[in-house]
């Protein structure tokens, strides 16, 4: 049965891949060399080339932005690898849950391991944890290579719409993080676990979670800005 599916799928697969490549080729912004750091992306015209104050031919690895389609394709391929080589979907929020457990263990001792939740998610370093460390390193390398590493506390859009106070930004980030942590574990995953891995598997739970996430996010964003 699956032999037929494979044969049938092969040429359809090619058709879709050709469609993808067409999309990618139509979007010339992957050749963009620099977007001035801090400038809002809403000001940038899709596909237009911006003058760079870096060498324009220093290569794609040192360019500050790649096409979102190229990055998405790359992440999709990464998902193939995680399934094939790790037998796991890409997932992030578990790392934070386990970290919370590990920190609590330092404070309250071994009894934390007896909590119902930590019996399900043992508080120790695991696959997702290393993944998150990797994300920090990978982003750092990317920022370093394009010269866009910069210590920034107040993002531009926040400054424009809300204000200049560091305290308010810190409190809002903290509160947002807390709600996000609770929400992610309640839903059983975040934008990586549900948003990418779950949706690509066509899991009903993940599609419902993602739609809920964006409804909550969009309504809140419009309310605060």
């Amino acid at each position, binding site marked *: 049965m699956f032999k037929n599916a494979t044969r049938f799928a092969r040429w359809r697969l090619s058709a879709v891949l050709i469609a993808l490549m067409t999309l990618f080729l139509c979007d010339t912004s992957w050749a963009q060399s620099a977007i001035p750091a801090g400038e809002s992306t809403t000001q940038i015209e899709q596909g237009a080339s911006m003058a760079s104050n870096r060498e324009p031919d220093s290569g794609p690895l040192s360019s500050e932005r790649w096409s979102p389609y190229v990055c998405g394709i790359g992440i999709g391929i990464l998902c193939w690898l995680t399934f094939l080589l790790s037998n796991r979907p890409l997932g992030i929020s578990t790392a934070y849950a386990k970290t919370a457990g590990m920190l609590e263990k330092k404070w309250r001792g071994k009894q934390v391991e007896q*909590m119902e939740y930590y019996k399900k998610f043992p508080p120790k370093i695991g696959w997702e944890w290393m993944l998150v460390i990797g994300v*920090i390193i990978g982003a750092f390398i990317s920022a370093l290579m394009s010269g866009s590493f910069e210590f920034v506390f107040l993002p531009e859009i926040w400054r424009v719409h809300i204000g200049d106070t560091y305290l308010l930004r810190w409190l809002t980030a903290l509160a947002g993080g807390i709600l996000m942590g609770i929400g992610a*574990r309640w839903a059983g995953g975040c934008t990586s676990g549900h948003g990418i891995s779950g949706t690509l598997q066509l899991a009903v*739970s993940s599609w419902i979670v993602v739609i809920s996430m964006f409804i909550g996010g969009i309504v809140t964003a419009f309310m605060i800005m």
Partner: protein
Amino acid sequence: MLKTIHNNQKVQLVFALLFGIIFGFLLQKGGVTRYDVIMGQLLLEDFTVIKVILSAVVVGMLGVYYMKGLGLVSLHTKPGSLGSSIPGGLLFGIGFALLGYCPGTIAGAVGQGSLDALLGGIPGIIIGCGIYAYLYPTLQRTVLHRGSFGDVTFPQLIPINHWFVVLAACGLILGVLFLLSIAGL
């Protein structure tokens, strides 16, 4: 051979680190580790986030289902219910808009120097997860399983060859991406 790799703990931790580095690199290059880009998406002005996610989903879906057909991978879907997927998702969304990063992109934001991510967001997410561990026993007994539909996938619900569902889903997603690009978004 794959099973041996899967079961080797040390190898898996190294793989996870490498996968993470690639993920972080791609997220940063895509711009989605930036507060401005994420808020731009939630304000429906900048569709970079959706483009990254949907492109990843199409490519990921085709590859994973193809490999599944070859017997190389299994699916790992998460169970869901009305009492967990919807409140969790909505709460996440509210936090998402306040913080301006998600758990993955915030790690990337830390890597690119965003201090609000490092000092506000990450402690917040950890605290939130810690709070959830205390809420879990009560939620588990009350709402978490209300309206449960398990870890079912759409192809499993539709009684035709799953490739029709997969290709239809990819077609729809590509259609959305195409509409976004011709709309100049």
